[in-house]
């Protein structure tokens, strides 16, 4: 499956507090209801902590959630 890139996934300057690692873009599987997508999101390379930034959560992600709910 192709990886979706979203401009909202910006995490410049954020790092994982426990690991001390900066967040770097990585393919992450997102799921809702019966659908699954692979999206490039900022992630801690060591422990895998994924950040969903506010602009993504309240923007495109919310739109997709609503679309899937009506499917």
């Amino acid at each position: 499956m192709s990886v979706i890139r979203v401009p909202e996934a910006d995490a410049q300057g954020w790092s994982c507090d426990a690991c001390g690692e900066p967040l770097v873009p990585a393919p992450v599987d997102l799921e809702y209801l019966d659908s699954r997508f692979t999206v490039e999101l900022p992630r801690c390379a060591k422990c895998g902590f994924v950040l969903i930034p506010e602009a993504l959560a309240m923007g495109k992600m919310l739109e997709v959630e609503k679309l899937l709910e009506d499917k």
Partner: protein
Amino acid sequence: MEQADLRKLEAQCVQEEPPFCTAACPLHVDARAFCSLMGQGDWDKAWAVLARTLPLPGVLSRLCHGPCMEACVRSAKGGAINIPALERFCAEQGGRAARTIPMPAKGKRVCVLGGGLAGLSAAWDLVRKGIRVVLHSERPGLDLAREGASPLPAGVLDAELERMVRLGADFQAPVAMTAESLQALLEEFDAVIVDCAEQDIEGLGLGEPDTMTLGTNMPGVFVAGQCDEHVFQAASGRKAALSAERFMQGASMVAGREREDPYPSKLFTNVDDVAEVAPEPVPEQGYDAQQARAEGLRCIRCECLECVKHCEYLARFGSYPKVYARQIYNNQSIVMGTRQANTLINSCTMCGLCEELCPGDFSMEDLCLQARRELVEQGNMPPSAHEFALRDMHFANGPDCALARHAPGEKTSTHLFFPGCQLTASRPAAVRAAYDHLRAHIPAMGIMLRCCGAPAHWAGRTREYERSMDELRSQWESLGRPAIVCACPTCQGMLQNALPAAAVVDLWQVLQGAGVPESVKGADMELTVHDPCTTRYEPEIRQQARGLLQSVGVRVREADMSGNLTECCGFGGLLAEANPELGADVAKRRADSLPGELVTYCAMCRDMLAKGGARISHVLDILFPDPSAGDLAARPAPGYSRRRENRAHLREGLLTDLWREPGDPPKPYEELAVSFTEACLATMEQRRILESDVRKTLLRARETGRRLVYAQSGRYRAVFRPVAVTYWVEFEETGDGYLVHNAWCHRMRVAGGAA
């Protein structure tokens, strides 16, 4: 929903019924569209409307005597629209109908005997359908041209006859008509139409023509023109032509012809607010352009829309119930694809006003409730629609808020105070004051704090509703089945339905019996009453609430849309949950529509209309004011988190003060020192993020050490997904706790991850 149910529902909505004029017109001209175009001065399009329906339009538009005028709704408001005068003016503008393209010949031939308007109209309809017509007449339309002061200018009739010839009509000399010659014609032609205005049919053995088909004793022979006025003659010619066509096709002669003659329309049009305007007088030479436009504009364009006019929800989706029924039916039938009517289904306030206003008793509430139940049953209900409200209901019924007890020191309960979870959330002090007051007069007054189950009912979650009601019932039974005293009309309705064995009364009646606090008598103010929509069919509750207000000196002002016509505050049916923007608009519209300062007797209505900008009190604010709480009518509606805290604190306060029981120890997340920026609180309210969810997220981060950090600002981000929603919190650490700057949430989750 089955298709038959859909048909039944569609038939209840009369919006698509033809206007009264069209129904009364023997030829069913769309006079409403015609008037509208005349009002705009668009003579060509107006003419096209006439030419689409009228046979020989140049002739008939000038001869029509306007039988529609007797049915015109405008008659009651100045006088019927003068359609004949408008038709004449339109015809004089030289409007041309679209070019008639001859249909491919069908290989059928019809003989028409007689060239009056009936015969000509029959021939007109038949040749346009590709059926050859031979019309025998001394001179077609001679009578029309001969009439004294004929309104037909020279050449008009001839032009129409020429068009018919071009389409295949063959005008021939008259033939003598006998039973034998008719029989001979039937052998030569596929059908015969006799225009009896020009032919005597006595003694031919045809008998009396059938009223629906104009058929006679001789199969294939139809008799038209047994009437006086021109439009009726034309209509009878059209009817004979249709019968001849069906006869030739071997089709049913009667199916679907119920509305061929003039009929009463089922449309309803309310003219209460229509201003009287007298008809435009017709000068001898007929209307000029300005007069024709003015007369066209007098048409009120009859339609119903009674429900849509009074419902922001129905108006917002751009149509009317008949269309919505179809959309909802389609929505429920989808197997694969997008269910486009989910928002429509989940936005109805279920307030019942449409049914009350509808001449056909159409109920969007019934339709939407059934649709919601089906969506739940099929597993297709969007989770985000009602989940928050259902969580709130569970919280109200959970250990932090729920309570069911005899009064302190009592072993039985004759009565049970049921304030409802929204009043306890909105103003717990009023619940406490009312309960203390009630016990002073009725000592065995127990109390039950919980939700009545309305959210589950509205959400279409039947099983959840029943579970909640079973629990409520068993608590009520364990308290000895006392009479239930409700402070919320929604609760009252739900309990009356679910506990038919219980005596359920409204608090207002009980307070009137018990007596109101002396200190609040002589209130001396005038307030407009907003009736909650759940009292639409409860005149006694409405009356009790008014009586109580009057007993303390409130002068009650009545609004136009009140009582059984009251409008919803925007919370009903969980609208404010499923479609918050529309919920806010409904609240604002209702708040704006009511004059002066308001009062109501439903806590949710109070808070919704306060959000809508109204200055509004709850009845209990007036009966049990609290000087320390400031101006209660101006207080803002508490937010979601505060509503929960209010319920929990009320329960705790009652336990501590009345039963001398220690409260529950605080939960670990409650012990964190957390503060919020103002902007963050507003964002959380809008996103329906509770303070408790933020606290749980912070606690989780503290316990696991998992959080993100932004080195330059020293801010952190933490994440937690308690059940179905993932919460993100952006915060900074203060000396002894946290200052929260932002919070957001999503339902999608990282596969296998924390978020």
